[in-house]
Each structure stands twice: as structure tokens, then as C-alpha cells.
């Protein structure tokens, strides 16, 4: 009988099995073989057998490697050390066989042969190696032009959707913004010095395929200001065709009811369009975003720990973004300056903004921008909120005093 009956069970079934993957790696790697064994034990014990990470890394960096040890190293020597190496992925997760092959060759030689493609933040994750291999892995990937990503209280590896490389919806150059933010802020990414982690994700349109509004402290979402471009002839084809019911499945599903269909003629009250993308998504040949394009900048998304999960909220409704994105950098640096000044240890910027009050926070960031002679003008505005305050506990700091004449 097999030593790993429970894990074997997960090799069955139609969906690609992670067990097959670990077994494939195990053909060459004792580490991968012991990974199967320790996992079987976890399935039996119903608990993890990984210990709290230790401090490991590569020289000169404080990030990019996560230490991991098993709690029974004598019994499972293959995974006594099982450290993770985060390799900075490309913008849009694009590769070719040559570039990916460089990493695979190094990893087959120096690691378990197991990967995560990709980690939740976006890194190309090499899963499972010894402390002694870390420095050689870094040296070898660096020689091929690759670098490590972020970890700990630093700028985490920025990531983005496929954007203008293969998507007609993309209104900003997501790939270039991501690479520029990554490469311009290498020190912030490799040497943790923030109150806590800071994630940047760049989505080309409000469909947000990279989940920036839920998963990143700084969410950059492409949008447009002018009118949706309508191709009347293509609209007529959709109306006559069987592919979609334009009235029920497009016009009536518009969240602000800003569309009308008269026969084959579609009209849009653009002043009341909230840029939700539904009609454009469904009638890709007939409708396109306007041509005055830029990004909405939102701040503060995070998972629950410590003060509860949050979605990001609007800070700048519309920002034009052209390389080398100086205005964006000025804004990012102003966020960091305010957060760095008063943020507590392990306080994400969203939690910090909530503690400080969004109004105070915006005013503070605006002050920094002004001090730095930034071209970005920021102020409190209704677009940043769902609705104005509904409680009267107002901290007035402007008032009149009696004056003697």
C-alpha cells in the first residue's frame, strides 16, 4: 500500500492536480518527494507542519526571500529548509521560452523544481530551497537579468493586467507604469523601511482584471473623461443579430439608466455614465471608451488583519498618465511621506487613512504635494466619498472671535 493514500486521492479527477506537479518535480528532487510526505502527514494530523519563518535572505537585500522550516527535520530532511525565492515577474506575466528557461535551469539545479506561478502579489515564486543555495540562486538569476521581488514592510512587487499589449479596453499603459514603478523604486522594494507592506496594482480599465481595488494599497484604474465612441452600423448589427439582446442585456442593465435604444439607434447620456464598462464589454465591436484617457487613483485596499478587510477608495478621480509618470511618482511619494511620518508599525495605509480621517489625510498629502512643487493638485472632493458626512460630530477648527473695536 502507498505511504501517501490521502495525497494519492488528489491525483484523481479531471482538474490538473498539484500532486502530479509535486510528483513530476520529485522525479529529480528529494525536496519535492519529502514535500509529498509532509503534506500527507498534515492531511492525517489536520494541521500545518511548517514553522514560523526565520530571517534568511541575500546580501544587501532585506526582501525577496521567505524563510521556511519544517517542524520535524529529522524525519523529513528533504524539507528541513524550504525557503521561497520571489523573482520579480514581468509586467503582464509575459514570457518566452528562452527567458523562462533561464529561471527553470537555475531552479532545477538549485531548488525543489516546484513553483507558484504566480504568487498573490504577482511574483514568480520559486518554492523550496536551502539556505546555502540562496546566494548562488540570486547571483545566477541576476546574471541573466532577473531580480528579486518584495517582501516584508516594503514596496511589494507591482503587478498589472495585460493592458495595451492585448486589450482594446486598456486606457493606460499598465505594463510600462508597472515596470517604471518597479524599477524606479528598487530601494523601496528591496530594503524594507515602511510602516508595513505597500502594494501597487495597475488595471487598464474598470473591469480591473488584476483585482487592484481589493488587493492593492495603491490601485490605479484606467478610465476616460469624454464620450463613449459609438459605431452606429455595428450597433445595428447587434440589434439585428442573435448574439445579444441589446435592450434587455445592455440598455436595461446600465446602472445609471443613461442609455436609450430607439430602433437601431443607441444613444448615451455620457454626463450620467459612471464608466462601469458593461455596455462596452458586451458590444465590443460597437462601443469603445472615449479618447480622453487617464486613470482613477484609489487607495487603501487590504485583507482583514488588523483593522478589517477594505476595498480601495478614490483619491484622485482622474490623472493623465504619460511616461515617465512624474505626476504619479510625486503622488506616490507624498502618500509615503504622510504615512511614514505618522503610521504605526504594521499599519497599512488604508488603516492609517481611516484612523487619521480621510479628509485630514487628503489635506496632508495635498500639503506635501504643494511643498514639493508638484504638478498634482489634490483636495477633498465629493468624488472621494459615497456621500457626505451623516453625523454632526464635526471637529470645527475655523471660528470667529469677538473683536474689540
Amino acid at each position, binding site marked *: 500500500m502507498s505511504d501517501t493514500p*490521502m495525497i494519492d486521492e488528489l491525483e484523481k479527477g479531471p482538474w490538473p492536480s498539484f500532486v502530479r506537479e509535486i510528483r513530476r518535480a520529485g522525479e529529480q528532487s528529494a525536496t519535492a518527494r519529502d514535500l509529498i510526505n509532509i*503534506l500527507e502527514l498534515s492531511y492525517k494530523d489536520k494541521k500545518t507542519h511548517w514553522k*514560523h519563518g526565520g530571517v534568511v535572505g541575500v546580501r544587501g537585500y532585506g526582501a525577496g526571500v521567505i524563510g521556511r522550516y519544517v517542524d520535524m527535520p529529522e524525519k523529513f530532511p528533504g524539507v528541513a529548509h524550504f525557503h521561497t525565492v520571489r523573482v520579480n515577474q514581468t509586467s503582464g506575466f509575459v514570457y518566452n*521560452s528562452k*527567458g523562462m528557461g533561464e529561471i*527553470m535551469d537555475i531552479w532545477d539545479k538549485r531548488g525543489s523544481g516546484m513553483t507558484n506561478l504566480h504568487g498573490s502579489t504577482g511574483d514568480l515564486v520559486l*518554492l523550496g530551497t536551502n539556505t546555502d543555495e540562496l546566494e548562488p540562486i540570486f547571483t545566477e538569476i541576476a546574471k541573466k537579468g532577473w531580480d528579486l521581488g518584495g517582501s516584508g514592510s516594503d514596496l511589494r512587487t507591482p503587478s498589472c493586467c495585460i493592458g495595451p499589449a*492585448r486589450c482594446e479596453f486598456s486606457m493606460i499603459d499598465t505594463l510600462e507604469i508597472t515596470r517604471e514603478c518597479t524599477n524606479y523604486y528598487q530601494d523601496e522594494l528591496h530594503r524594507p523601511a515602511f510602516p508595513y507592506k505597500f502594494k501597487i496594482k495597475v488595471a487598464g480599465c474598470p473591469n480591473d482584471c488584476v483585482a487592484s481595488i481589493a488587493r492593492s494599497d495603491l490601485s490605479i484604474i484606467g478610465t476616460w473623461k469624454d464620450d463613449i465612441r459609438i459605431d452606429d452600423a455595428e450597433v445595428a448589427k447587434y440589434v439585428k443579430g442573435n448574439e445579444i439582446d441589446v435592450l434587455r442585456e445592455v440598455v436595461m442593465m446600465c446602472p445609471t439608466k443613461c442609455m436609450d435604444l430607439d430602433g437601431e439607434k443607441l444613444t448615451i447620456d455620457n454626463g450620467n455614465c459612471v464608466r462601469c464598462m458593461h455596455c462596452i464589454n458586451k458590444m465590443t465591436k460597437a462601443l469603445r471608451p472615449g479618447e480622453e484617457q487617464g486613470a482613477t487613483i484609489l487607495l487603501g485596499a487590504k485583507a*482583514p*488583519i488588523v483593522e478589517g478587510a477594505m476595498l480601495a477608495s478614490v483619491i484622485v478621480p482622474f490623472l493623465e498618465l504619460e511616461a515617465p509618470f512624474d505626476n504619479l511618482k510625486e503622488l506616490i511619494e507624498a502618500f509615503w511621506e504622510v504615512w511614514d511620518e505618522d503610521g504605526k508599525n504594521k499599519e497599512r495605509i488604508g488603516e492609517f487613512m481611516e484612523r487619521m480621517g480621510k479628509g485630514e489625510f487628503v489635506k496632508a498629502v495635498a500639503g506635501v504635494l504643494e511643498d514639493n512643487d508638484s504638478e498634482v493638485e489634490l483636495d477633498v472632493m465629493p468624488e472621494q466619498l459615497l456621500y457626505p458626512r451623516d453625523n454632526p460630530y464635526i471637529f470645527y477648527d475655523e471660528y470667529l472671535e469677538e473683536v474689540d473695536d
Partner: protein
Amino acid sequence: MAEERITDQGAKDYKEFLHPVMLKNYGQWKYHEIVKPGVLVHVAESGDKIYTVRIGSPRLLSTKSIRFFMATADKYCDGFLRWTTRNNVEFMTDKEENVDKIIKEVEADGWPVGGTGRTASNMVHTQGWVHCHTSATDASGIVKSIMDSVFEDFTNENLPGKLKMALACCLNMCGAVHASDISVLGIHRRPPKVDYHLLGQICEIPTTIAACPTGAIRQDIVDGVKAMKIVEDQCMFCGACYTACPNMPIADPLNDGVSVWVGGKISNARSKPTMTKLVVPYLPNNPPRWPEVVEAVNKIISVYKENGKKYERLGEMIERIGWPKFFKLTGFEFTKYHVDDFKLAFKSYNTSAHLRF
């Protein structure tokens, strides 16, 4: 002389890794269509076309499988391939005749084609017992079991709208699951077991106290030694203290398990991005296949299939029919755990007489 150390190169240039047709038409795409589930075609202003074949992956990949993808890309895609945010692999080619060849090749090695349009897309997830020290459950095993059961909904457009599922194996949520259509979240249910004597020696006390969302950790003196204690009534078992302090292990095989959440979304299409809401507060860890979790997810999907309108996401359907009806249709028990009691809980109270009977 020592070789100069190369550091801070940053990300490689993506332009090096774009298919020539994508590079040529960068920013000049006109429209796209879903040819069939898992196959997209993007058409540029120039008239150029690029076809994409999308396959599901378990995210945990061996170098051997990645080399198989590379070889497939070499054969049909001029060597180019990409991954998606949801851990799918995409093969892109400008030659329409290559599409079926790619599909045949990947399917022969066990990789399903799908995940576009109104399908159940690949489930994003965390590390679980494969690699993580704080996990309350495994990730890959549950995801494999769920994806096996919804396989036909990945390869076919069977659903009213897109269905995006996610799993995080503890409240740290490194796979942020607070805005998915269906989320599975690993949970602990007992406070950490602590060695009070060692606490202050191993851990930084102020950092550990600050890690607690509810202020349940207090400074203490035990036998004249600086320590910490946990006010157990205030602990909601998040494990944040264990991340700050290794001497407060929280894993408990008897009580750890998962909760199930629904109705979140990321996209701005139609309705706003929305957080998930609790439907099942606790299901046991039952490896290797977690049948109770798979059953709960399937129950939700079958209610969605029967009641959802075309293009409506699960959360939008629930908004339309109301939460009471959703609980009735799914048969999940409504308990005290469904009533929020953290900050801003009152925002979830029904402050109206709007009720459906």
C-alpha cells in the same frame, strides 16, 4: 578580483516577451471576441489578429510542466506565453490554424481549456499546508476538489455570468478573498496556546499587543517575568499575534476548519465592487476531499444557475432576490454568526421596512 555584484536591476523589459503581433499592435487593439470557451481573438486597428488559448493550472507547477508549456509555445506561438492573474496559462498565436493544434497538445497532457466569459474561472488560492505556517486548512486540496466538481463549468459557458472563486487558508488572506463570487476562508476557532513564561523572552511585547485587532492581548507579569496574557472572551482567532510572535501557536486540529462567503466582486461592471458576505460559518477540515465544502459550493452554484439572469453576477442576483430568499433557496442555516459585531456593524442593519414575504 571579485566579480562585481549585480543588484537592483528590477523587472525585465516586458517588450522582450511580447509576441511580435502584440508588440506591433501595442495600444492599437480594436475589439475582441470569445471564439469558444477558452479561446479569444483580439483584432487590431491594422486588421492583425492574435488568438489566445487559455488553460487552467493548479498554480503549483513543476519545472517539468513549465518546460512542457515552453515547448508548446515554441511549436505554435513563436516561443511566447503568459500567465493570468488567476493562474491560467495563455498561448498566443497569430495563426488561426494553430489554435486546435495547441488545444490538442495541451489536453493530451491533462490541461483543460476554458475559463473565459460566463464560466467558473480558475480558483485563486493561497499556500495552505504545502508551505504556510499560519494556515487553518489546506488550499490546494480543497481547490482541486472544488475544481474537479465544477470542471464542466470551466470548460463550458454554463453559468449566468462570470463566477470567480477564491480560497485563503487563514484571515491573513494572502489571496485576498474578500471580493470574490464564492470564497472559502480557513478559520481557527480557539485562542492561541501560549507559553506565558517564554513569551516576553522570544517576542517583542508591544508589537504582539499591537497585532491584535480586538485588544485581547495584555501585558502581564508571571513569576516575576514579563509576559503576555490573552483575554479569551475578546479573541476572534485571527492568528495575527502568531504572525508577530512564534510562541503563540494557534493551529488546533480539533477546531480548525473553513467558512464560506459569497457575493463579492472586483469588476465595476454594472454594480460596484463588493465585499463577500458570510453564508456558512464553519465546516470541518475533512481531507483529502473536504466533501462538506464541495457540497456547499455546489449548492450555491446550482441556486445561481437556476435563479441568475444572463450576465448577472452571483452577488447581483442575491441583491435582486434578497438575502432571506438566498438562505431559503440554499438551505443554509442562518445563525448568530451571520450578524456582524465588529466596527461599523450597524451599516449592515436593515434600517427600513423593505422586506419580501
